[in-house]
């Protein structure tokens, strides 16, 4: 177990043994409630008026929501909701309650806007399909349900797994789905429309990490040209002498979003290990020559960590350095050339040499001190940052933060042997971050590389260098025979078929965009009159009413009553408690325990 990179979520999988066959059935009381449909609902559906057959499909991400009507090929509206929730919650209960109240208020505003502004429809007559990410925090799900049933009074909600829906959108019901979204990348095998939740694997290497990484890279390697100090000055200093380091304030979320969505792409893999070995001796004199070659990968993963440190450091040092305007500085100040930074510099050098991507100029709002009404500043994004920024997603080796490719392979390792081939040959990549041009082909080669690397030639041993290296453990050896079968269904540049078998699925999926596949699947499920566990409002109201008696009154109660409601809402993390598990304390334990583990 120690060598298998356990994500923080491993706790979840403890709930059920790894071999699915061994999982005994458990009490399904809660579930039974959920699926049972009332006769009333049956009749209303049959005799519905024009149009009400169409359900509303909501794909609520933590950042971006996609909404529309079922039966349509594209969402009606897509909008940014800002990061609504993250991987962490406040540990202090009072703080957490407050966070939840804010979240609920924001969710409510957004959901109301979905019905009233985006779709212009009345919630009371519309059933809802909620595209549910398997790791959507339960408290968020409950809030969504509470708002939909309570505030908006929708007749029913169907909870449908996003990964499964995405598979539907490519015409399949079996496959290994990787969702590379904002907070997490999650791989989930699905067999014959059954998500194998215990085999789910996840990593926080996803969109938000990419953003943080790009920010760090730009702070270190970007260049900023402030706007001219005065418009009337007959001549201004040439750009070269005005260029400065990138001030922190310039890199707003909006700017980074621009960089991420319009400038960044994913280049082909570099043969880092060999290249670095060749290079390090002849490289910069500041390079540490005694750096063991195998440490290179380590440095690469330090890349992000260090840059995060730097981030916080910069914040504190910013006020002091905000006075500069026309000073030309070296991009990396000497006083902070730590070891990590030297490595960063080395990496930057290497990437620069190998990148042919053009540098881009982006207009940005200057920091307040420079807002002299003379226009916008210019941020120069080095080409290699555009091409290599996303390396952070493919940089594995960390026990808690497997690379995206490793996440897929780990999940595959968990799957029963006889399913592996089928699943490996139908990998589907969805989620907004995978929209980066070149992401999917790169993921394919990373998969190949991760499998191929045996410990002797491994460029990325998972252990720290200061510890004795464990005996060679070849994690993915068992998967190696499957190499010819690996195929990403929606690979836009599929590798040439290797002949006979497996990978002829590659690139055969319809050309829906990875980001909308889950929504499209939801729409499809809705138009096929199916999709997920349906919870009618009556059920919710019943459960709600049962709660009422022991409710005394005011604000704080609001929170606790919400805690207690939701046995009606299906939740895969709750049900499969192994036999003999201690009787769960219904409201609190089961729902907080697995999810609280997420970021803690």
């Amino acid at each position: 177990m120690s060598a298998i990179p356990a994500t923080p979520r491993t706790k979840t999988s403890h709930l059920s043994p790894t071999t699915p066959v061994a999982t005994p059935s458990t009490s399904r009381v809660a579930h039974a409630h959920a699926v049972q449909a009332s006769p009333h609902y049956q009749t209303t559906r049959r005799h519905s008026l024009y149009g009400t057959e169409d359900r509303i499909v909501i794909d609520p991400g933590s950042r971006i929501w996609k909404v529309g009507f079922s039966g349509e090929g594209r969402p009606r509206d897509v909008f940014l909701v800002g990061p609504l929730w993250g991987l962490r919650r406040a540990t202090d209960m009072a703080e957490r309650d407050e966070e939840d109240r804010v979240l609920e208020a924001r969710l409510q505003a957004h959901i109301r806007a979905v019905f009233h502004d985006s779709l212009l429809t009345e919630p009371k007559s519309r059933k809802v399909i909620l595209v549910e990410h398997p790791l959507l925090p339960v408290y968020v799900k409950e809030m969504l349900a509470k708002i939909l049933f309570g505030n908006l009074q929708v007749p029913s909600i169907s909870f449908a797994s996003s990964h499964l829906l995405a598979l539907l959108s490519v015409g399949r019901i079996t496959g290994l789905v990787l969702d590379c979204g904002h907070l997490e990348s999650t791989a989930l095998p699905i067999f014959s429309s059954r998500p194998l939740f215990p085999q789910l694997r996840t990593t926080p290497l996803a969109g938000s990490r990419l953003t943080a990484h790009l920010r760090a890279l730009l702070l270190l390697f970007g260049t900023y040209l402030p706007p001219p100090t005065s418009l009337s000055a007959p001549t201004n200093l040439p750009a070269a002498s005005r260029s400065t380091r990138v001030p922190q304030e310039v890199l707003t979320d909006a700017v980074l979003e621009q960089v991420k969505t319009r400038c960044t792409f994913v280049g082909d893999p570099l043969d880092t290990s060999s290249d670095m070995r060749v290079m390090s001796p002849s490289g910069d004199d500041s390079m540490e020559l005694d750096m063991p070659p195998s440490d290179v990968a380590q440095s690469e993963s330090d890349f992000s960590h260090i840059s995060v440190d730097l981030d916080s450091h910069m914040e504190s040092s910013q006020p002091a350095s905000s006075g500069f305007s026309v000073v030309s500085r070296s991009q990396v100040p000497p006083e902070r050339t730590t070891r990590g930074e030297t490595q960063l510099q080395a990496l930057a050098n290497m990437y620069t040499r190998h990148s042919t991507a053009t540098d881009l100029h982006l207009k940005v709002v200057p920091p307040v001190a420079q807002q002299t009404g003379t226009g916008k500043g210019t941020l120069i994004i080095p080409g290699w940052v555009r091409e290599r920024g996303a390396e952070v997603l493919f940089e594995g080796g960390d026990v808690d933060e497997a690379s995206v490719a490793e996440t897929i392979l780990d999940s595959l390792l968990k799957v029963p042997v006889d399913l592996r081939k089928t699943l490996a040959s139908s990998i589907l990549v969805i989620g907004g971050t995978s929209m980066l041009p070149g992401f999917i082909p790169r993921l394919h080669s990373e998969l190949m590389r991760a499998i191929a690397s045996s410990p002797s030639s491994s460029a990325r041993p998972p252990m720290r260098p200061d510890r004795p290296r464990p005996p060679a453990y070849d994690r993915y050896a068992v998967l190696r025979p499957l190499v010819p079968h690996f195929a990403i269904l929606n690979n836009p540049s599929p590798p040439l078929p290797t002949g006979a078998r497996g990978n002829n699925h590659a690139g055969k999926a319809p050309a829906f965009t990875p980001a909308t596949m889950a929504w499209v699947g939801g729409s499809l499920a809705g138009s096929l009159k199916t999709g997920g566990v349906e919870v009618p409002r009556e059920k919710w109201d019943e459960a709600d009413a049962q709660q009422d008696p022991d409710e005394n009154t005011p604000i704080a109660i609001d929170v606790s009553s919400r805690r207690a409601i939701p046995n009606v809402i299906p939740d895969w993390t709750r049900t499969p408690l192994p036999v003999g598990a201690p009787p769960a304390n219904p409201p609190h334990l089961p729902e907080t325990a697995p999810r609280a583990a997420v970021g803690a």
Partner: protein
Amino acid sequence: MAPLRDKFTIHSKAVVCQDVELKGDITIGSGTIVHPKATIFAIAGPIVIGTGCIIEESAIIVNRRKEVMRIGDDNLFEIGCRVESPTVGNFNTISTRARVHHTVRISSYCVIGAGCLVVPTEDEVLDEYTVIYGPAADRRTWSGRGKVQEADLRRKHAEYLRETLPKFNRLRRGEAHGHGA
């Protein structure tokens, strides 16, 4: 720099209102309309404005360079814009409160959108059909479709102004009269 002597050469078919601030050596071509409260300053070098231009209220045209600032034909300078370009071609539109720096030369059929700042630090020539728009002064290239209609509209606009403005404004006439140098 030596201040230029005021020397205004205004074509007899141009319409230049009395309440216009002119300074330096300025030539205004036939059919060009200068609204009241416009400002044209030839500080360092002369300014030559072609035919059929419309210069609206509180537009400012300044030449800071020694060379002659040449403004072509049928350009529209909207209210409150400020132009210092050494050359401006034909059929350009400088929208309201746009500001064009002296480092920019404008060719023809360009549009500078409302409120756009065009202040590059290095010298630059805007290609024909360049459109600058939006708060970030984005650029794109216009296909040129519709330019005939626009030119037609521009001429009608100028024609209308030539008829209407003199009814309500005193005009500045004739050549080179001194102006409190």
